[in-house]
């Protein structure tokens, strides 16, 4: 079998003195959508931050298309074709919506055009010239998603993209993710909204206390519900 698109082995990550990830290993194949599930504080966000290099105090190995990312400065990681939608959205206050949208440079061909993006998120088009953080919480979330779709990155790291969104928008985001999946994007999705994630994912990883404790394909969801209940309370 070919090497997976992303292969994490024995990853440790630290916030100062606190040892947040304690030997995480996981793999994501090209075109796959996997979720990271787990309670608050399990280390899901930390895993994403370690991949993209925002958290650089990390040890172990993260290989993307065969390239080692640990030790690489984060702009090179971004350039390698990974898009990141952070948990706290990361919209820039001093930039307008337009500027926010155009900020990330294109890293590969095949990104969406601005027109396509506005079609997807009509709210944004109306507010194009207002400062980024003057958008409502949900609008900011849309902007954060929209921003990486432009770049052409093929691996997307989405940290709770539905948090704080109206049900209609959640559905819209679900459709977007499904569409991206259809186009062959690879997606790592961190979600609290388990029902939402279950509809989109190929595979799930369950995290707890900085470890991966379980992984299973979406098809095995039924049998696993017992175990999941224990870990997640769902």
């Amino acid at each position: 079998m070919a090497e997976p698109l992303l292969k994490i082995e024995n990853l440790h990550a630290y916030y100062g003195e606190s040892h947040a990830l304690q030997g995480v290993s996981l793999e994501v194949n090209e075109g796959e959508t996997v979720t990271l599930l787990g309670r608050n504080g399990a280390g899901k966000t930390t895993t994403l931050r370690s991949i993209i290099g925002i958290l650089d105090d990390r040890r172990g190995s993260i290989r993307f298309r065969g390239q080692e990312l640990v030790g690489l400065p984060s702009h090179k990681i971004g350039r390698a074709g990974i898009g990141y939608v952070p948990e706290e959205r990361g919209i820039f206050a001093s930039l307008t919506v337009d500027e926010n949208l155009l900020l990330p440079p294109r890293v590969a061909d095949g990104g969406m055009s601005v027109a396509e993006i506005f079609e997807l998120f009509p709210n944004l088009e109306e507010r194009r010239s207002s400062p980024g953080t003057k958008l409502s919480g949900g609008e900011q979330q849309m902007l954060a998603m929209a921003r990486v779709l432009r770049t052409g990155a093929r691996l997307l790291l989405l940290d709770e993209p539905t948090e704080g969104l109206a049900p209609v928008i959640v559905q819209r985001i679900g459709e977007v993710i499904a569409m991206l999946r259809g186009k062959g994007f690879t997606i790592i999705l961190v979600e609290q909204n388990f029902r939402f994630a279950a509809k989109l994912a190929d595979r799930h990883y369950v995290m707890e206390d900085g470890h991966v404790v379980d992984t299973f394909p979406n098809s095995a969801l039924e049998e696993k519900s017992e175990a999941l209940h224990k870990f997640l309370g769902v």
Partner: protein
Amino acid sequence: MDADIILKATQLTKQFRGFYAVRDVDLSVRRGAIHALIGPNGAGKTTVFNLLTKFHIPTAGTIMFDGEDITHEKPAATARRGLVRSFQISATFPHLTVLENVRVALQRPAGLAAQFWRSSDVLKQLDERAIALIEDFKLMPWLREPATNLSYGRKRALELATTLALEPRMMLLDEPMAGLGHEDIDHVVELIRKAAQGRTVLMVEHNLSVVSKLCDRITVLQRGEILAEGDYATVSEDPRVREAYMGKEAA
């Protein structure tokens, strides 16, 4: 004026450089109710909160709280009246411990805030109450941990505990469930229900199952204006609400 109405906003309007975020909103909240404010993203819910708690100055309209006009009051003064909010994006005191976070809220009502000549030992008298709240929110293991070290979800829980500590007459909760893990949601719902006894709650929430479980009355906002109002059943039947907010598969 109806004595049953604790908060009444009339013709509330907020304009940002020609853009109406809130327009002619009439909102009445009954004493003792759990009232939800829902609506699509960008509808103006947070803005309404900001107006009610004086973080924004309304372009037009009046706000009456408990029969008094508070339209031009300072935010801190409004908070002291017992109209207290939480924030949509989590708001704790990051370098204070969990205990201290909660205690800060207790200090003002207890009259232990401005004394710079007394020892902070007097604050110990607040610990018991603070710890009770912290226990409720399952934050005991982090009692002396600075808030910054908590995960996102726990920060939300802490923020809620802090708000409750004020024993506000009316609480404004901006998406209290956002970021909370599934396992915690039911628990927080219970906490809110318990906290709501004897006080009024106005909350913004996107989690409709929470809204349906908790709220007596719902106001739906769209593009800054009121779209519908009523109990959950009425509102969720409304085709305009379904179209604008809930989408195809509303519960």
